[in-house]
C-alpha cells in the first residue's frame, strides 16, 4: 500500500512534465492555424482564414466525406440545444467541441469518440454554446447555468468548476473561453431580467478571478454620463456572449458587447448607454479599458455588437494600418484603427431604417421615431439582425470581408411604458427575411459581390476562407457550399442533414487537409480522396 502510494506520487511527479509536454503549445496560438486549430476562431485574429491549400479551387470538386460524428446529448434536448454552434478546437489530432452542458473529444482523423462529458445542469437558457478553450492539458467550457468547467484534456475528467454568474438572476453562458497567456477569458449572457454584463479573466489553475471588466460604469466613473441614473446603470445589460479577439503585440483584447437592458424600452435609460453595444479594447493582463467604439448608441432593437471584432494589418488610404473590422448586427460594417479605436469606415451592408445617419465619431445616430412603440414600428433589420453571431471571415488575399447577412423586418412593440420598465419590456414580431452572403471591400465598406439565396428564410452560417482560394458557407437549405472568394461563383456543394450551424474549420494532419463543419447535432469531416 505504502509502496503504491509512493509509486503514485512518483508517477505523478514524473508524469506531470510529460503530460504538460503533450498539452497545447501556447506558441500555436500565435500562428495561423495549420496542423492545429487552437482557439474558437482558429487564431487570435478572428479572420478565420487558413493558409492551407491542399483543398483548393481546382480540386474542391473531388471533396468527399471522411467521417460523420453524431453528437448525441441524450433525450430531452430542446430544438435549440442540439445545434452544434461551437467551432471545434483541434489539438494533436483531437477535436474538442460542445453542445450546451456537453463536451466531446473525437479523433480528428476518424471521428471516433474519445470521451463525452455531461454537466448536470441547474437550469439556464440552453440556446447554444460556442465551444472550449484549451490551456496546456486542460479544457475549459461554460454552461447554461453559468459555470466555468475545467476538464482533463486527455480523459474528459472533471478537474473543477466555478460559478461565473448567477443563473437565478437569469444569466446564462454561451461563449467559448478565450485563453490568453495564463488568463481564461470568460463572458456571460442573459437579457431576461436586466442584469449587468461583464467580462472576466480566470486563473487556469484555480478558476479564481484575475480581473473583471464591467460593461457599465459605476456612478461618477467615465461613461456614467451616458446613463440617466444609478438604477439604469445597475440594470443595463451589455452581455459578453461571444468570444473576442487579441493582438499579442499590443497585448489588447477586443470584445463586442451586447444590447442594453431593458431590451426594448429606452425611456428609462436615455443616453448612449456605455459600454453596451460597443467594441472595447482591454489590456489583457488588467482588463483596463483602453478605448471603445459604440456601433449602436442607445440601442432598443436587440442589436448586440458581439460579432467578431476581426483584426488584420493592411493598407488604408495607401498606408499600412493596424485595423479592426466588424460586420455588426445593426446592419453597419465598421472599420476602425485598432490602436486608437478611431472609425475609418461606417457603411450599411443592408437597407436599414433604424438610424438617421452617422455622427462625427462614425457612430450611427438612432432614430427616435423607430424606437419600439406601443402600436409598433416597422424596422429593418429585424431583432435577429442584419447578421448575428455566426462568425465572418476576412481573406487577406482578396482583401474582402465576408459576412452572412439577413435583410429583414420586424415590428417592434413597447409593452411597458413605465419609466422603470422591466425585463424586455417589449416584443418584436418577425415579418420577413432574406439571406445573402456578402463580400465587403474593407477599405470602402462597399459590397463587392452578393449571393442572395433563392429560398426563403433568415438562417445564417459561419464562414471560412482558405489560401486554396475557397470560401466555405452553409446556405438556408442545408447545403455546405464552396464559393470562389473573389467572384462569389459556386464551385462545390453538398447537401447535409441540416443547415450548417457553426463556423467551418480546417486542419492538416499527416499531409491531409480536413474540412469540418457542424450541422445540427452532426459533425461532418471532408477531405480529398487521394491526398
Amino acid at each position: 500500500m505504502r509502496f503504491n502510494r509512493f509509486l503514485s506520487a512518483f508517477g505523478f511527479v514524473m508524469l506531470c512534465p510529460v503530460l504538460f509536454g503533450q498539452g497545447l503549445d501556447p506558441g500555436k496560438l500565435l500562428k495561423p492555424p495549420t496542423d492545429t486549430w487552437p482557439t474558437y476562431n482558429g487564431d487570435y485574429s478572428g479572420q478565420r482564414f487558413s493558409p492551407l491549400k491542399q483543398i483548393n479551387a481546382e480540386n474542391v470538386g473531388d471533396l468527399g466525406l471522411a467521417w460523420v460524428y453524431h453528437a448525441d446529448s441524450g433525450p430531452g434536448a430542446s430544438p435549440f440545444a442540439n445545434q452544434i454552434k461551437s467551432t471545434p478546437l483541434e489539438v494533436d489530432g483531437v477535436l474538442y467541441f460542445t453542445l450546451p452542458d456537453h463536451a466531446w473529444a473525437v479523433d480528428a482523423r476518424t471521428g471516433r469518440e474519445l470521451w463525452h462529458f455531461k454537466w448536470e445542469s441547474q437550469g439556464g437558457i440552453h440556446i447554444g454554446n460556442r465551444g472550449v478553450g484549451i490551456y496546456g492539458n486542460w479544457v475549459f467550457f461554460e454552461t447554461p447555468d453559468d459555470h466555468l468547467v475545467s476538464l482533463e484534456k486527455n480523459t474528459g475528467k472533471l478537474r473543477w468548476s466555478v460559478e461565473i454568474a448567477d443563473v437565478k438572476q437569469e444569466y446564462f453562458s454561451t461563449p467559448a473561453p478565450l485563453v490568453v497567456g495564463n488568463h481564461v477569458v470568460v463572458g456571460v449572457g442573459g437579457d431576461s431580467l436586466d442584469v449587468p454584463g461583464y467580462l472576466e479573466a480566470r486563473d487556469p489553475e484555480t478558476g479564481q478571478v484575475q480581473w473583471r471588466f464591467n460593461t457599465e460604469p459605476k456612478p461618477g466613473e467615465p461613461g456614467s454620463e451616458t446613463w440617466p441614473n444609478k438604477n439604469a446603470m445597475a440594470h443595463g445589460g451589455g452581455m459578453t456572449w461571444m468570444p473576442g479577439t487579441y493582438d499579442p503585440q499590443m497585448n489588447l483584447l477586443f470584445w463586442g458587447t451586447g444590447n442594453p437592458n431593458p431590451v426594448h424600452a429606452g425611456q428609462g435609460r436615455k443616453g448612449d448607454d456605455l459600454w453596451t453595444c460597443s467594441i472595447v479594447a482591454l489590456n489583457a493582463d488588467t482588463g483596463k479599458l483602453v478605448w471603445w467604439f459604440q456601433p449602436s448608441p442607445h440601442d432598443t432593437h436587440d442589436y448586440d455588437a458581439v460579432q467578431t471584432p476581426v483584426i488584420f494589418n493592411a493598407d488604408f488610404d495607401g498606408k499600412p494600418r493596424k485595423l479592426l473590422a466588424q460586420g455588426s448586427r445593426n446592419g453597419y460594417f465598421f472599420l476602425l484603427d485598432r490602436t486608437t479605436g478611431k472609425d475609418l469606415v461606417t457603411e450599411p451592408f443592408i437597407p436599414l431604417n433604424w438610424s438617421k445617419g452617422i455622427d462625427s465619431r462614425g457612430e450611427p445616430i438612432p432614430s427616435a421615431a423607430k424606437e419600439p412603440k406601443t402600436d409598433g414600428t416597422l424596422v429593418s433589420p429585424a431583432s435577429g439582425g442584419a447578421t448575428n453571431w455566426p462568425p465572418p471571415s476576412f481573406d487577406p488575399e482578396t482583401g474582402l470581408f465576408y459576412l452572412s447577412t439577413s435583410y429583414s423586418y420586424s415590428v417592434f412593440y413597447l409593452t411597458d411604458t413605465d419609466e422603470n420598465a422591466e425585463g424586455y419590456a417589449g416584443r418584436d414580431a418577425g415579418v420577413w427575411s432574406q439571406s445573402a452572403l456578402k463580400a465587403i471591400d474593407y477599405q470602402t465598406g462597399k459590397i463587392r459581390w452578393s449571393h442572395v439565396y433563392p429560398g426563403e428564410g433568415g438562417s445564417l452560417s459561419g464562414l471560412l476562407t482558405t489560401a486554396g482560394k475557397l470560401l466555405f458557407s452553409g446556405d438556408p437549405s442545408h447545403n455546405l457550399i464552396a464559393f470562389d472568394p473573389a467572384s462569389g461563383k459556386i464551385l462545390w456543394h453538398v447537401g447535409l442533414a441540416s443547415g450548417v450551424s457553426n463556423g467551418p474549420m480546417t486542419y492538416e494532419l499527416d499531409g491531409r487537409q480536413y474540412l469540418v463543419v457542424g450541422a445540427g447535432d452532426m459533425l461532418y469531416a471532408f477531405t480529398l480522396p487521394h491526398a
Partner: protein
Amino acid sequence: MIYKRALVAVLFSAAAILLCAQEPQIPPTNPPAEPPPGAANGPKPGPAAKPPNAGQQPTQQGAAAGAQNRTSAIGNFLAIGAPPDPAAVERGEKLFVANCAFCHGTNAKGGATGPDLVRSVLVLHDEGTGKDIGPVILNGRPAKGMPKFDFTEAQIKDIAAFLRSRNQAAANRMDYKILNINTGDPKAGEAYFNAHCANCHSATGDLAHIASKDDAPTLQNKFLYPLEHHYPGMPGPPPDPRTEKTVTVTLPSGESFSGKLDHIDDFSVAMTDSSGEYHSWLLDGATGVRVEIHDPLKAHEELLKQYTDADMHNVLAYLETLK
C-alpha cells in the same frame, strides 16, 4: 460534372440526408437574445399561470391547446421554471397589496420608500419558497425602515408565490401583452388600401369580417406579410394555400411542369403537381432546366419596403373596421 460528384458525396454521406427541405426555413442559429421566430407572430394567449397584475388584461380563457403547448415550450426554453400555484398567487397578491404595496408598489416594482422586488436578488433566490424572504418579512429591516410583519408560514409562502409570479412575468417576454395598436386613421388607411391592395384584395370579398377573425397584432402581422412561421416541432396552423408559391419548370425538351413550389435552392427545385405527384430536378447549366417562380406575396414584400409607420397604423385601423 460537379453535380455528379456532389451527388455521390451526398449518397456516400448518410442515409438520413435529404435533398429537399420542406419545413419552414427557420434559423437554427438563433442568438440568445432573439426570441424563437415561431413565437414572434403577435401575442399568444397565456396559460392560466399568468399572474394577476394591475397593468395587465385578464388571462384569455379557452386558449387553443396548441397555443398552450407553444407557450409552455417557450417557457421551458426561457428556463423560467414551474409557475407557482395560481390560488397561492392570488392569496399572496391580496396580502401584498394590503401590507407591502405602500412601499413596494402594487406590482412589486418598488416605490418611493421600498425597493423593486421583481428583480431583487434575494427574491430571485427565494424562488417562491418563502425561505429567503421569510426572515426579512418576520424581522423587518429596521436599519432601512422596513417594519416586521407577523405573518404565518402559509402567508409568507403565498407572498413568495406572488413575487415568483411577478419575477416570471417580467422574465417571460413571450407572454407580454401587446397594448393598443389600433391608433391609425381608418380613412387614410382605406385610401392606402384602395391604392395599393385592392388589386388583389376586397373589403367585401376575401377580407370581409377580417377584423373578427384575429386580434389586432395578429392581423397587423398578417397584412404585412401573411406567412405563418412556426417552429419545427411546435404546433401551428397549416399554410394558407393562397400564400403558396407556384413554379413552372421547363425542360430542354420543351416539356413543362407546373405546381406548388416545395423547395428551391441554388442546386435543385422541387414541386408538387395538381395530381399530388412530387417532382424534383437538379439545376445547373448542363441540365438546361428553366424555372419560373410565381410568388403571390411579392407585392407584400415590395410594400414592406415602402410603408411608413403611419401607413402601417392606418391600414390596420381600416382593416379593424371590417368587423
